[in-house]
Each structure stands twice: as C-alpha cells, then as structure tokens.
C-alpha cells in the first residue's frame, strides 16, 4: 500500500539574493512498512523535504499525497489533523518541552487525541524504551540518550503509520545512537510503520530498505 507519494515537488524561498530553490522537482513514493533514508550533504534540502512530506510546510510547486490524500487540498488544520492520526516525529534536538516531565511529554499527543487510557499507554511506552523509573524526571534531569528515548516513546505512543526521524542520532554518542536506531527499526518492524529517516550517516542509511540521495535540492 502506497503511504506517501511526492509528485514533482519544489520549494523556493526568498533570500536577499533572489529566490532560492531548496527542493527541486522531487518525485518518489513510499510503501507501508518501508524504511527509507534521505541522505545528502548539509544544505542539500533533506529537512525541508521531510517537512514537505509530513505536511509541516507546503511546496511551491508539485504535490504530496499522504495516505491517499492530496496535502495541497488541506489547510494547516487539515494537515495537522492528518498528522495527529497517522504521524510520529523524532528530532535531532529531541524537542521535549522543558517544563513537562518525561511522562507529560509522552502524554502530549494522547491528550490531544483525547485518549481515555492516555496515562496507561504513556507508561507502557516509557517502559518499552526503558525509562519507566524516570517518568517523573524533567528533560534537564535526563541525559541526551534518555531524552531521545522519551521522544521515541512520544512518537510511537499513538501507533503512527509513518514515523519521520530527522537526524535522530545527530546529538548522541555512537553507543547511545546505536541503541536509539535499534529501537527505531524495532518499531518499524513490529508495527509495520513506514520510517522516513533523514541522516548523514551512510552506514545507518544502508540499513534502510531504500536510500534517496539529495544534492542541491535534487534527487540523484
């Protein structure tokens, strides 16, 4: 089943020197349960492409089809609703809310969805990433690896169809990074979640089913 399809998407932004093309006429599709890596040098447009695929941003030209729905026909709230239903995120800088404890961070998407078993599900998710004992800790009381595991629990707690991971190990040491990657792929396998992984790491990319290489906004 086709989960994401990109049709000739282009993203331009304005700059003092004139229009700047960050993503240039990119087309591809992704299937359910597939793990796809997007690689390329810094400034190649990887994160922008991920934002376009997840409906966080809109392309200047072309269209993105997500779960059979053309994102360009939806407004921002429509895209948000689609994300709430189908998408999970893991970021390079974790993006945990510093004023919330670990469990409160995991609870966030569940509360938004109005899940009645939110607390139990959040506790289970933290147990799965090995942080059950530290659920009441604030992000500043956790190590980088622990923070990323909380972010993983938050991403998976709603059982998303697609997981977008933007350089998930970029801020972690090799050993901790490897543990996070294992968890990511384990979720990908067990829940048949489509994994879209943006990374610099060729070795990590090679573990995915497919690698999309981007350079100066173009797919090679």
């Amino acid at each position, binding site marked *: 089943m086709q989960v994401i399809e990109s049709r000739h998407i282009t993203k331009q932004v304005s700059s003092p020197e004139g229009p700047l093309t960050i993503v240039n006429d990119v087309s591809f599709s992704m299937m359910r349960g597939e793990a796809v890596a997007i690689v390329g040098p810094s400034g190649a447009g990887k994160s922008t492409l991920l934002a376009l695929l997840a409906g966080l941003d809109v392309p200047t030209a072309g269209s993105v089809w997500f779960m059979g729905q053309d994102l360009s026909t939806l407004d*921002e709230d429509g895209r*948000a609703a689609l994300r709430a239903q189908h998408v999970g995120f893991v970021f390079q800088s974790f993006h945990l809310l510093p*004023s919330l404890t670990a469990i409160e961070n995991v609870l966030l998407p569940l509360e938004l969805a109005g899940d009645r078993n939110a607390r139990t599900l959040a506790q289970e998710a933290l147990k799965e990433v090995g942080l059950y004992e530290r659920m009441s800790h604030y992000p500043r009381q956790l190590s980088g690896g622990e923070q990323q595991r909380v972010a993983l629990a938050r991403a998976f707690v709603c059982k998303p169809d697609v997981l977008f991971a933007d350089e998930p190990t970029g801020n972690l040491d090799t050993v901790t990074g490897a543990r996070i990657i294992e968890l990511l792929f384990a979720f990908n396998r067990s829940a048949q979640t489509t994994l879209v992984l943006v990374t610099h790491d060729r070795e990590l990319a090679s573990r995915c089913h497919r690698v999309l290489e981007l350079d100066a906004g173009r797919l090679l």
Partner: protein
Amino acid sequence: MMITLRFTWRSFLRDVRSGELSILFIALVTALAALSSVGFLTSRMERLIQEQANVVLAADIRLESGRPLDQDQVYRQRAREMGLSTAATVSFSSMIFSGDSSQLATVIAAESAYPLRGALRISPQPFAPARSVMGGPTPGSVWADPRLLTRLGIPVGGTLTLGDSTLAVTASLDYRPDQGAGFVDLAPTLLINTSDLEGTHLLISGSRATWAVLFAGPSERLVVYRAWLNNQKKEGQRLIGSVDSNNQMQSAITRAGHFLNLSALITLLLSSVAIAMSARRFALGHLDFAALLKCVGASQRFILMVTAGELILLAVTASLVGVAIGYLSQWGLSWLLKDIMKVSVPPPAWTPVWLCTGTAITLLLGFALPPLLELKQVPPARVLSHRLSAPRLRFGLPYLMASSALAAILYGLVRDRVLAAQAGAAVIVVGATLYVAGRALVKVTKGIRGAAGVSWRYGLANVARRGHESAIQVVAFGLGLTVLLVLIVVRQDLMSEWQHSLPSAAPNHFLINIPPAQVSTLNQFLVARGVAPPTFAPWVRGRLTAVNGQRMSDRKVATERGQRFTDREQNLSWSKDLPPDNQLTSGSWWSGVTSNQALVSVASEFQESLNLKLGDQLTFDIAGESLVAKLTSVRKVRWDGFRPNFFLVFSPGTLDASTGTFMTSIYLDSHQRLMLSDLVRLFPSVTVFDVQQLLQQVKDIVDRASEAVQSVFVFALLAGVVVLFAAIQATRYERRFESALLRTLGASKRLVLTGVAVEFAAIGVLAGVLAASAASLAGWWLSVYLFNLPYRFDGAVWIIGVVSGLVLVGTAGTLATWSVLGAPPAMILREG
C-alpha cells in the same frame, strides 16, 4: 470540547508548576489587590462624604412643613417598622426675656433623640471649651447660644423667660450640626425640650414655625423609605435629602480621593507594563511548544482555545487572590480611618470581585492575548529548523486596543476623564521618550566599547547587540523608576505640603456681619488681645437671577448643586487683587484694568454647575436692586484653607451701592476664646461662627487619608518592583545561554558578572536620568493641576533617580544572572 478543557487545565497546572506564569500572576495580583482595596475604600469615603453632608441636616432625610405635620405619627410608625430612627423638631422665632433685657432668638424644640446625625456641643459658660453630648436638654431646662447668654447677661445656671414659661439655662450651646455652614442662620439659638413647648403657649393656630421630622438609618432602607414618603407627603411638605457637605470638607475629601485614585491608577498602569512584558516573554517561550503541538496534530483553533483558556484560568485565580488581599488590606486601611468614618462598616459587597475579574480578563486579553495569538501562526516546520522563525509578533494594533481597554478601566476607576487621559498620555510620552533614548544608548555603546576592557566590552556589546531588547528594558526600567520617584515626590513633598496647608493656627472662627464703620475698631480690639491682624473681606448677599438676559427659571440647570446655586442667596465679595488660596483657571484678573462695566469672577464649582462661559452677562438681585456684571475669569478656590473665600468676587467699586458688611476669619486658642463674650457685647451686630469642629474634621481627614494613601502606595511600589523583575526576566534565558558559552570558553564567573553588571548599570543610569526628568515634570503637574498645591523643586529626585537606577537595576540584574551562573554550563548548553 472536553479534550480542550482538560488539556487547558493540565497546561495551566504545568505552566504554574514550572513558574512560567509567575510574573504574569504576580503582576495581575498586585494590580487587582490595589484596585480592590482602593475600590472598597473609595466606596467608604463616599459614604463618609454622604454622612458629613447629612450632618448638616442632623439626619439623613428631613421632612418639614410650615404647618403641623398631621400625618407625622403614621410616617414615624412606618419608619420605626423599617428600623429607622426618628425625631421631631419645631423651630420658630421668638423674643427671649431676662429681667429687662430681651433678644430675638431661633427657638428649637426637639425630642431627646435629636440630633440623629452629628452631635451637640455644650460648655459650662459662654465660649469656654466645649464637649460633645448625646441628645438635647431635659424637660425644664434649656441650652442657649453663647451670644444670647452674653447679650442677655444670663449665666449658665440662671433662668430665662420664653412665652409663659420660665426655664433653667443648664449649658451654653456651642454647636449644633444643623446650624448651617453658609453663615445665614443669624439669630442665636435656644434649644428646648419638646415637652416644654406646650407650656410656653407660643404656638397657636397660624403661628409661623417650621415643623420637621428627622429620619436616619442604613442607606438601603432609606432609599425605600424615601420613595414611600415621597408618595405619601402632602402639599406644602418638603422632603430634604442629602445636601452638599460644606466646601472645606468636600475639598479635603476630594483631594484624599485624588491621592488614593492616583496610587491605584499608577499601580494599574505599572502592572499593565509588567503584564505586557511577561506575556511577551511567555509567548516567545511558547513558540516551540506551539510548533510542537501543531506537529503532533493540534489545530490552530485548539492552540487558540488552550491559550485563551489558560489566560482565563489565570485571570480568575489572580482575581480571587487579588481581591482577597485587597479585602484584607481594606480592613486595615479602614481601621486607620475609623476615627473619621463614624459609619457602620458596610456588609461585604460582591461588586469588587466582578470588577476585578473583569479587569483581570481585560488586562490579560488586552496585553497578553495579542502576543499569544501569534502562537497559532507559528509554522510547524520550526521544529526542524529554528531558521523558520515565528511570524513577527505584532504589537501595534493589539496594544492600541489594549490601551483603549485600559483607558476604559482607568476611567471607571477614577471617574475623571481628564485625569485618566492625562495619566495615559503621560505614560505613552514617557515610554516613547525612553524608547528613543534607549535606541540612542545602543548607538553610543557601539561607538565606545572598543576602548574598554574585556568585561566592559562584553557588557556594552550586549547593550548594543540586543538593540531592541535593550531599548525595551530602558522603557520598562524607566517607567518603573519614574513611578517610584513620583511616589517619592507625592508621598513626601505633596503630602507634607497638604498637611502644612492646614497649620495648627489655621483660622477656627469666622466673624460676619461686621459693619464697615466697625472694621478698624474690631481690628484694634482683636490685635490688642493678641490675635494676628486678620484680613477683612467685604460681604454682600445676593442671588443670580439671569444669564445673558435669560432668567434662571427658564434656564436648564442639570445638577442639584447648580439648582441650589440659583435657588439660594450667595455670598458676594469684591477684591482688587486675586485673593490668596485662589488660582485663575481661565480669563484674566482685573488688576490695573479700569472699566466702567461691573466685572465678576466665579469659582470653578459655580461655573461648571451653571455651565457659564467667559463673557456671559450675569444679572444679580442684591437687596432688591439689579446688578449686571460681565464674567471675566474663573478661579479654582482652596476652600480647606479656612480663610474667607467666595464663589463670586466682583471688581472694586461694583458693589459700592449695596449696603454690605465685612467678614473675616481668625485663630483663637482656648484662652483667647473667652474674650468672645466681650466681643459680642461690644460689637452686637457681629456674629461669630466657631469652625473649630469642622477644622478638626478636615485635619483628621488629611492625617488619616495620608496614612491610607501611604498604605496603598505599597501596592504601587510592589508593581514597580514587578516591572523591574519582568524586564530582567525578559532576557534571562538568552543570558543564561551566553554566560554558559562564555564560561565554556574560559571566562571567569567574575568576568561574566562584571559584564552583566556593566550592561544593567548602563541601562539603569539612563533609565534613572530619564525617570528623574519625568518624575519632576509629573510632580510639577500633579501639584499644580491636580492637587492645587504650590510646587517645590526637589533636587533629591535626581540623585535618587540616578543612584537607584544604577544600584537597583544593576544589582537586581546582576543578582538575577547570578542564579544562572550556578548551573553547570554543560547542562545549559545541552538544553539549548
């Protein structure tokens, strides 16, 4: 909906727990505590004014008639059923005899409950120190005006004849509340008990007398009773409600109200600045939160609802706490005022709670919602790249709307359009000046930092780099300091000026009806007895009958006061120079101008009540003669100076044709007072009014109000501190990160702290200089225009301004950063 509500509640709890809402909360609570305590207090002050006004009637309402009140028992029965107290009086003129002497007097026959408001004061001999007593004379005895006793030569303990009765004089009647402050009740009073009236056989059918029933009680019951009585009363019966309290009392209370309102107004304005600043920081801190919420599927509406919901929860919580604090402090303040508030404490009203909740929501929605509304515009892709900044927070239009809402609150609070508008305009002008100066400081520091040492360079570079934030901080610190300095000016200078305006030797007796031929002999008499030479003012009574040819009866007069000005005769005077205690507000004085036409200057109360304009031709009836005078100036009069002052003053020569007398005011201590017996004997036409009681009341108001105002200033002071704190917090996160970075690069704590101290000191000194200028201007404006007191330049404000800017801002900023330095740099850098 339930999801949104639950999420809002949880977000609120989280933000409270994390301290994100602390400053907003403190700012709101401060504003509301000040608002509610002043609100409660002002309503009590209004009651005081009402009470004082009613003292003039010796009751709250009074029903009187030229004929016996045949229904009076029905009226009184109904009043008693409603829990009101009543008393009946009959007053008439009669000759009093003692041996061969006789004297015309106003006889008042009163029941023992009289007076219902205020108290009688009696003394054991004429003009001796008096004491207050409850109730009037017992049957068979009378209390007589000291003038009556002196002129008839009766000692206290002697007897006098009234009609067919011989009655014992048991006291000299020094004061009765309804004796009239307008100096018109000229015949001396004899107070007798009602039960002795019949034996005098003076009142027969058709006698000229005034029969009155007095009523007093709680105001809410009086309103109902008054409406009932108004329907019941017969033709010829007159119902008299509240009247103006006398000018001196009114003037003192108004000024006390100005002081109280000013401090509440300042607190509110400052709190708004603190709310706006902390809300801005709260919004900036929530950009990532909003982006993340969108990322995980929250709609814009959801974010808006959660944000507004949090603000409403905050407003309600802050209202409850603020009102509770305000209510408690109001009890403290009213304890201070208890001596002058001789009224029962009103039951707690819920009105201030709604007022405060409304104000809290308005302040928050006005100043906090606009930046928070922008949160819904945050691009969700910001979670991937901070380069995708939020849309620029727009403050212009929302703040304009918020300022309008604030202006409405200010007006509701002080009920003075001009004061609210001027205070608002002053804040805007001072704020704008501070911002411009702040930007200039940024430019200057750019130029000089190369010449300084490393920590200085770091500090000054910070000022320059955070250009906009630095300028905003100058505005916040400057406004905070301005207000603190204004408080110093008002509290110390204006308050003491006010207290000194009533020296211990302020005139406590008015002498009226002085024939022109006796002015110099009376002056000699007084000076010979150690009295400071008084100023004599000519005095004529007359009534305004027409304006520009239009009769007053045809002219629409909107206010009750205006109606009284036209119904009653007024005291008129003339003067070559502008009298002391008078200040021209429009037009010009006639110094040096010779005009054939009669000119008149009016007091602002008279001009406003009757809607008069410069150039109007006013027609007066003076003892049956008509006089037309052109209105050439309007004066603001300081009535609480206790010197002869007039609503209407004419140009010299204008009143020559009228048979006038002179009046003056003098200060007499208790020993000097005894010579008044000689005075009334030697100058039989002169009437002496003892205003000692009134003077004491005014002094009490000034003293107690000063204490109350100083207590309310505590809230304003607190609001100023909250603003300083909010301004420091505004850049705390950024500062935290920078200091961690600097320390990572090898900078010592000392270097970082010195840099921060330099930055805050530079901002503080500039804010201090500007605040001192603004405070001096404000002090001048307040003293001249609002409080009508002389202005004295106070150089100390400048020293305090600069030093407190340097020390307060420098220290507070450095201390706030100190706590940041405690955390390990690695942890801060990891948090980013």
